[in-house]
């Protein structure tokens, strides 16, 4: 018996449930924690596709750093009043579900179509080792890779400059 489909559906269901939790949870802090869970299960999906490096990077960067920062910032707020717009009544929740369903149809249908078209290619790229990934990144996609790096650096410096201009702990003291 092939165990792969069972594991896949298990993780897919968990990803879907936790992603729904992000939208439907009444408190923003629980939403952020659901987001972390989504990242965790998503990396599980990458892992069973033999994309171990991608799975680990997903965990390290998103679950381990980005969402930790989200949670950290959320913890600093007084969340008692923030609960209101998030919980809403049944009409708000129903419309949320409607939007989710619409988004799902808009994104999932073209994706499945495209996946079928390039299925054989996708299958060939399974088991992509970290070494091969690195070779691709530093040869074929070197330009895009470096441009993204430069872009991120610019964003970082811009964020620091903006934060300094607006005051705060690291503001210039005049």
């Amino acid at each position, binding site marked *: 018996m092939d165990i792969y489909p069972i594991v896949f559906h298990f993780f897919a269901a968990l990803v879907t449930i936790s992603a729904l939790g992000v939208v439907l949870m009444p408190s923003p802090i629980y939403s952020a924690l659901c987001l972390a869970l989504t990242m965790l299960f998503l990396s599980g999906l990458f892992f069973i596709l033999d994309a*171990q*490096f991608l799975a680990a990077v997903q965990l390290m960067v998103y679950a381990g750093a980005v969402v930790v920062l989200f949670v950290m910032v959320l913890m600093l707020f007084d969340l008692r009043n923030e609960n209101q717009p998030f919980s809403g009544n049944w009409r708000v929740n129903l419309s949320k579900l409607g939007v989710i369903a619409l988004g799902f149809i808009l994104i999932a249908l073209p994706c499945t179509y495209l996946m079928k078209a390039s299925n054989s290619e996708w299958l060939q790229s399974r088991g992509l080792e970290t070494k091969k990934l690195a070779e691709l990144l530093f040869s074929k996609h070197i330009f895009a890779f470096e441009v993204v790096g430069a872009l991120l650096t610019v964003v970082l410096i811009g964020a620091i400059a903006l934060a300094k201009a607006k005051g705060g702990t690291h503001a210039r003291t005049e």
Partner: protein
Amino acid sequence: MGKDIFEVGINLAKVAVIFLMMIQAVPLLVWLERRGSAFIQNRLGPNRVGPLGLLQLLADAVKFIFKEQFIPGNAAKFLFLAAPVVALIPAALAFTAIPLSIPIQVEAFEMLGKSWGPYTFQFQGVKMDSGIIYILAVSSLGAYGLLLAGWASANKYSLMGALRASAQMISYELGLGLSIVGILMIYGTFDLNAMIDMQKGPLQFSFLGSEYVIPFLPNWGIFYQPLGALLFFICNFAESNRLPFDLPESEGELVAGFHTEYGGFKMLMFFMGEYGHMMVGAGLVTTFYLGGYLIPGLTEDTVRTLIATEVGAGTVANLLTALVFHVSFIVKLALLLWIFIWVRWTLPRFRYDTLMNLGWKTLLPWTLANAAITAIVLYFARGI
């Protein structure tokens, strides 16, 4: 997992046993910490219960289990209870990927009227091709346990501790990841077992086309990356929230930081998480820089033939050989853990801004420089 029920069963039992080994090491380390700190500070430490105070551990365990379970009134109950579990899991998961000894060959044998085997069992939880990536990824989740504990306790001290903990762990993760780039470039693999294989034999390397062999030194990573080893070890202190980096629970300012509201077994689980992170850190330093389970001057075959002359070749000899190498690993691990404890009772705590300055302005540039210099030296030395 395995091709028949025997192999699957052993592999499953192995994961449980390694987890229990890790958990059982915690009381011993607590005892070592209390006695060791006492001797460092010219005291005696707990020495009343049992020989050398060893039964104190048992008394502590009983106390931890039977203490009253307390949940603060304003706490977020679910997260308050979940936080200690979340704190323990990353360390436990990471420890399964560290190779503890040589693989054990089990020869074919007869049992219950069937013939089984031969098998090869890895002396580690799970063998992975990209073990180090997995360990880094899993232990990066360690911040959640502390964050959740701090927030769910509904206590200002806890929240401050949690914020410090997460900021500190994220900052030092950069140093942690970058400090091993040098050694990863030298080994050229993410596989921890392959790394240990490369550290066999005496120190030998090729530089500018000529071969050098230094027979009296083992071929360990620390001789190639002394700075990397030091930086990695320092970052591990911050990752496991040990002094001098234990700002999240600095008792002078924050009562007990993120675990102020915790007591009994829940508190113990945070302890296990901290000691687990220490063990993972020490295990990684051993694997990268100190030759893992290898014994300098002795090869696998020498030990095996030596043992085989006593008990006869076969499964038993293989098992004993693996145990000998496992003891070697344990000795190195224990030495590093002792350094963790020793540092804790020797150095004072950092102030929060000096901690951040150390992480971002000292460790990060040094680790980057280490990686860059290693890359340049490798480029010229190996002539790639």
